[in-house]
């Protein structure tokens, strides 16, 4: 029990971030018109490409001789980049359509 409390204590800032982010995420898109559901989802998908940062860190820490880890990390970087770049470009293309005639 005490160890768990200690764990919470030492990760308290992260726990705060999580709780506040949950409410922020809900608040921030609360009043979106249904027309924008698809672009918003697509934009959100681009944002969850932040996972690329984890992939970069993993990749950068792999010792040069470890080819299995290098290849897995390399794949992760490619996939993460696809998510980020593709996501933002597709979203932009969708929104471009909306703007043209506004």
């Amino acid at each position: 029990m005490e160890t768990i409390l200690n764990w919470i204590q030492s990760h308290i800032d992260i726990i705060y971030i999580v709780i506040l982010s949950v409410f922020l995420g809900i608040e921030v898109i609360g009043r979106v018109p249904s027309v924008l559901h698809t672009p918003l989802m697509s934009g959100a998908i681009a944002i969850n490409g932040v996972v690329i940062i984890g992939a970069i860190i993993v990749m950068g820490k792999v010792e040069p001789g470890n080819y299995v880890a290098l290849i897995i990390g390399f794949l992760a970087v490619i996939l993460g980049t696809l998510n980020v770049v593709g996501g933002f470009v597709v979203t932009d293309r969708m929104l471009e359509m909306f703007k043209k005639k506004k």
Partner: protein
Amino acid sequence: MELSLLTVCYLIGSLTFIIGLKMLSHPDSARKGNLVAAVGMTIAILGTIFLYEEEGKKLGNYSWIFGGLFLGTVIGVLAAKKVKMTAMPEMVSLFNGMGGACAALISVNEFGHISKMLTVSTADIPGWHTTIIVSPEESVNMIGMVITIFLGLIIGTVSFAGSMIAWGKLNGKVKDFAFPGQQVFNLILLAGTLITAGYLAFNLTANNVILFYIIAIASLIYGVLFVLPIGGADMPVVISLLNSFTGVAAACGGFLYDNQVMLTGGILVGAAGTLLTILMCKAMNRSLTNVLIGSFGGNKSSASAAQTGPQGNYKEISLSDAAVCMCYANKVIIVPGYGLAVAQAQHVCHELEKLLEEKGVNVSYAIHPVAGRMPGHMNVLLAEADVSYDKLQEMEQANDEFKTTDVVLVLGANDVVNPAAKTDASSPIYGMPILEVEQAKTVIVNKRSMKPGYAGIENELFFQPKTSMLFGDAKAALQKLVAEIKSL
């Protein structure tokens, strides 16, 4: 100095994500919002590459990192630029799956590190943490870390597998599939996976490392089975849900590396994605659990079997009659649906609209919130064909207009104009807001056949006296209609 600079980069990144999402939810600022988030992401990525250090050591393997970034960017841009507007939803699903896979691969590599530590230590002592670490506090930290790795693996893999199936369903390569007792099997599989992961987190030894890969495979199977029974028309909701899964998987990475931008970005998307999923469900008058368990898809056959509605008489309309009817109307409203998207008829539809406008007919479009394959899909499609933004009417607005409308042309829409949603309490779509096209003087429905729509139920609208049917593929039918009107 450099590390604190990195913190600032991450701060900027988190801020732009929040502002970007906020701006994305308003039509005027949406495009800028997307750009803002993209800039923030770039800053965070570059910051990580050049400034990140752990225990005083910078990251290595730059050539691999830049190679991956380069390849991913080239493929991503090409794919995103080349994809047809109609295929956009499945593209989005594909990208989401990539993110999930990325999160899962991170977990695989991180677990590789840990399992190495296990093999060098005396592995046969039970209770894995005692083999590497002494203090109980550290062991709690290690268990926390392993749990995070497992969560990242499971959620990421489910998101990846699910997104791939959703992608396949949207482009028609994967058909609906369900076997009896699938829901129960899915639940058992999920529970089994989670229990195994929980057990492994506390009892990891060099001997049961293999369980990690079994968990990965089980998650993969679960992701596939989770999405398979759900009907193609529900995919938007599923993708939105998987989007929030990927967000949570990314947040697991944030936990692992104590990385604020991954944490805020991931949780933000996780929460926003969940809300968005619920909003989409609401637009279809379904509950999230209903979609989650996939009972709509599963019960679809029984719903249509139970429905023994009278196959009344419908009447067909000839092309020339339809042409005359529309030409001499004062006001025409077009209701586009799934059929228009499938047939890619948006351009010829716009042509028809222009032609009628030249003849002095007032033409507009009525867009149901869930028309097409995704909420807002019709707007994007029609915008691609240069249809003016102010010709599109939202449902409430359109429902006021129908009373004064002479002709409503329904193009491949079915359930969203089914009056049973208002009148028949036993109907599966009862309570769903619909476009009340039956209030117009005449309704012309273009469909390929009399087959029921996605919900698998008859539409009494088609049998009403003021309704007439114009059978055929939306694009072909509209082309003929345009030719007919030109020759009038």
